[in-house]
């Protein structure tokens, strides 16, 4: 009789999203939007985001910026900053990993 092998799944599940949350559609224009600039604190990330904002502001009629500096790359913004973002910004840009 041939031996059968049973192996257990070592993973925490499939890599696909595990819930039905969806991103909001990307805006077709930034006219009138307040841009959240979320820097993660690495290197010259704040300068980079400011440069990105300046470029956007030249090309679109944006209504201002909300600047947030996270305490670290692996943690969300502090609650007060998170509240400012969700109440004042209408779109947000983040980035500059490392």
């Amino acid at each position, binding site marked *: 009789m041939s031996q059968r092998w049973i*192996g*257990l799944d*070592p993973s*925490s599940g499939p890599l696909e999203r595990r819930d039905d949350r969806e991103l909001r559609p990307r805006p077709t224009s930034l006219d009138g939007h307040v841009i959240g600039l979320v820097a993660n604190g690495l290197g010259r990330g704040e300068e980079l985001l400011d440069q990105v904002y300046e470029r956007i502001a030249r090309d679109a009629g944006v209504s201002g910026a909300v600047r947030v500096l996270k*305490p670290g790359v692996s*943690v969300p913004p502090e609650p007060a900053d998170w509240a400012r973002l969700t109440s004042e910004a209408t779109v947000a840009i983040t980035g500059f990993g490392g």
Partner: protein
Amino acid sequence: MASPSPSADRHEYGSYDELLEDYFDRGWTDGLPVVPPTPEKVAAFLSAAGLEGAEVLGEVPTREVVVTAEHAAINAVMAGCRPEYMPTVVAAVRAHLHEKGNCHSTTGTLSGAAQAVIINGPVRQELDVACGAGCFGPGFRANATIGRALRLVVRNVCRAIPGVLDRASFSTPLRYQFCFGEDEECNDWTPMHVERGLSPGDSAVTVASVMNLLSATDFTSRDPEGICDAILGVIRSRFIASDRWLGDGTNLVLVIGPEHRRFFDRASWSKNDIRSYMWPRLHEDGKNVTGLGRPEGLLIVAAGGDGMGDSWLLFPHLAWAITEKIEPV
């Protein structure tokens, strides 16, 4: 009381080769063959650690991942561990998943940081953990498989898969495994886990992120100051990563080899004497030039073998080095 029947999904195969090829295809290995994680072996590993499979060892909130003892056991079996290694693997997983161990950043970073697992206490002899010659390299089952088990958990459970949540530009061979013990018997230095608050009779693992592993080679100095100056030259050549969230809690691990240790021993220098000499020299004009927050952040470990006049520096990624007691069963 250990869980008698693991709850993970089961896959059935007609042969070991078939199982192995399927595990490769599913991306469940580090590219090397694995030991089949059968329900019986996994149950034996949980029993060896005295844990229920559902026991939570830690989380990665940004990835919505919860890591259980069963996850650790499955991956420890696959790594080639023996059941008696399981409490050490569990402590390593807990340490890595400490909030300030910063799993999300250290395993996702472009820089390809690794995790060093440094073992202290009586468990080193019980498991035959290499602390002396060749201890960073291959040939030692406990070192190789405990370090590999943590990395398989990082890959399979914490989802740090190259091109997915592992974004390393080059990565590092240290990510296959990097585990060694402190040579506590070579001199009268206070072992690292005791300096960090545990008792000499305790066993412990310290998990430190490693962005760069650099040697400080010095064949010519014949006193502690000269050896320290050689090491300081390497420290000053790099910056120790930190941010507001990590504050002054970052660490730099110095692994002092025996050809350097002999000069500290002759002069009766303790680990604290080394810190006292180095700390002011990590400043220029009163300003800290390295990014290391506190003198205690220098974690000094005795290890390695005779012959080569070098010591090694484990420069961190964005994380604290976390020491976790290995709980006796």
